[in-house]
């Protein structure tokens, strides 16, 4: 066996990318003034410690707890409503945009027209998710006024964009064997989705959806912007006031909700497994 055949042909590419990423890392460190050691200086630690020590005990008078409970439900309800609408938007768009469900791409190259359609859908998703919720909220405030409606819609649009993209990515990075085999035998796209892609990716899709729901709960600060209330707004104002005790209570609620979402996700995946 001649010697050169035993040299790894991928080696150069690897070296190049390793060096290139190092070269890119340097300016980022400079631009972000990345100096972690200043966190360890005593006069940096003390105020932070003061703030954190105000976390204990968390605020727990009945009045606040009642408020907390009401806002928690509001938040959960808005997140759920926003997510349901987002799903309505994301599912068809992601199915339209995935390559594995493309009939013409079965043989490698996608036909022109579907390729353009897919690209358009991808761009739509991108615009939907790259415009911050606040901007959407302000658009809707003009029509439905202050209150949960505009907040829910804002969440629905941005999250629709995100879910659509991530669903498409998940479907695309899975093994295409089962689905392409069905389509090659003449099954339709939706049929293929239900008979090959869904059983394969159900777990991953669920775990992402539940995670996003949990995100919607957490990021409900945007809802406060337009007067829809919610935990996010409460957190926002307590945080601005450096009210440690309140922050701690709200954080505990967040953690409980996140824990709950985790359990739900695990249970769902167990059922699917």
């Amino acid at each position, binding site marked *: 066996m001649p010697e050169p055949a035993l040299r790894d042909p991928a080696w150069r590419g690897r070296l190049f990318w390793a060096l290139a990423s190092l070269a890119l890392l340097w300016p980022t460190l400079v631009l972000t003034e990345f100096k972690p050691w200043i966190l360890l200086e005593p006069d940096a630690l003390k105020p932070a410690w003061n703030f954190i020590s105000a976390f204990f005990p968390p605020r727990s008078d009945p009045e606040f707890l009642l408020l907390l409970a009401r806002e928690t439900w509001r938040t959960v309800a808005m997140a759920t409503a926003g997510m349901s609408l987002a799903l309505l938007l994301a599912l068809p768009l992601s199915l339209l945009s995935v390559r594995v469900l493309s009939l013409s791409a079965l043989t490698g190259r996608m036909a022109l027209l579907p390729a353009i359609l897919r690209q358009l859908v991808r761009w739509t998703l991108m615009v939907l998710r790259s415009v911050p919720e606040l901007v959407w909220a302000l658009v809707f405030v003009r029509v*439905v*006024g202050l209150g949960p409606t505009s907040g829910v819609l804002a969440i629905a649009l941005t999250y629709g964009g995100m879910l659509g993209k991530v669903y498409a990515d998940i479907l695309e990075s899975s093994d295409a064997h089962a689905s392409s085999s069905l389509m090659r035998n003449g099954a339709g796209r939706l049929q293929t989705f239900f008979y090959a892609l869904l059983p394969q990716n159900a777990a991953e899709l669920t775990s992402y959806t539940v995670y996003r729901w949990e995100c919607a709960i957490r990021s409900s600060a945007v809802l*406060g912007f337009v007067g829809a209330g919610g935990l996010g707004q409460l957190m926002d104002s307590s945080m601005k006031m450096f009210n440690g005790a309140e922050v701690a209570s709200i954080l505990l609620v967040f953690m409980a909700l996140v824990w709950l979402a985790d359990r739900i996700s695990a249970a769902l995946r167990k059922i699917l497994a």
Partner: protein
Amino acid sequence: QAVFKVTAIPDESPTELARKAAPLVKYLEKTLGMKVEFTPVTDYAASVEALANKQVDLAWYGGFTFVQASVRSGGKVIPLVQREEDAKFRSVFITSDPAIKTLADLKGKNVSFGSQSSTSGHLMPRSFLLQANIDPDKDFKRVAYSGAHDATIAAVVAGKVDAGALNISVWEKFVADGKVDTNKVRVFYTTPGFYDYNWTVHADMPAAQREKLTKAFLSLDRASPEGKEILELQRATRFIPTKAENYKGIEQAAHSAGLLK
């Protein structure tokens, strides 16, 4: 059944706003004879958009927000009343740094304003800084926007920023309530007076209702227990009528500070 919708700019935290508004809402329900709903928001722009598009009927605005609403709606908003204090409103600059004594000492420091849309928390302090030949965008190390007056105090107390600019009445209330340690945090500059807050309605409101509303505000009196409670919460001696011309000065300041085009 029609609902009379009220909102306010979030110059304080929404819980505080809701607390302040509760007795006023009850009072308006009685005098207007219809259901009144107060919605606190946390974004200045949202309250402006809502009134300019007739999604709320009445809004509590700062001078600058009023000017913005007027511009956004093509002049279709009308200021009804303001507090007596609002005719000569002032802002304060506070600090916890003993080295800062004048506005000029702020150069190279971290300074926090309130919200970018606030009159007394941003526009006027900025305008007076510019008059003193200090350009916040160039001369300060960093400019932060805390979002609300009380948050600015908190940021200065926590040492997050070296100095902050805010509304004098919030500062005085904090001092009166003992919520801030005046030995550590002190005022080092107070601005001259300017026109600020008012209650604004949109121009399409029937004149009769506007009249009724104005009268309801003007007849609030510290003598009655109800009036006392409302006025105290609003931090007002009494309400007086106002007109759009009062806010020309603010508009000019906004133009010269580059906040309005």
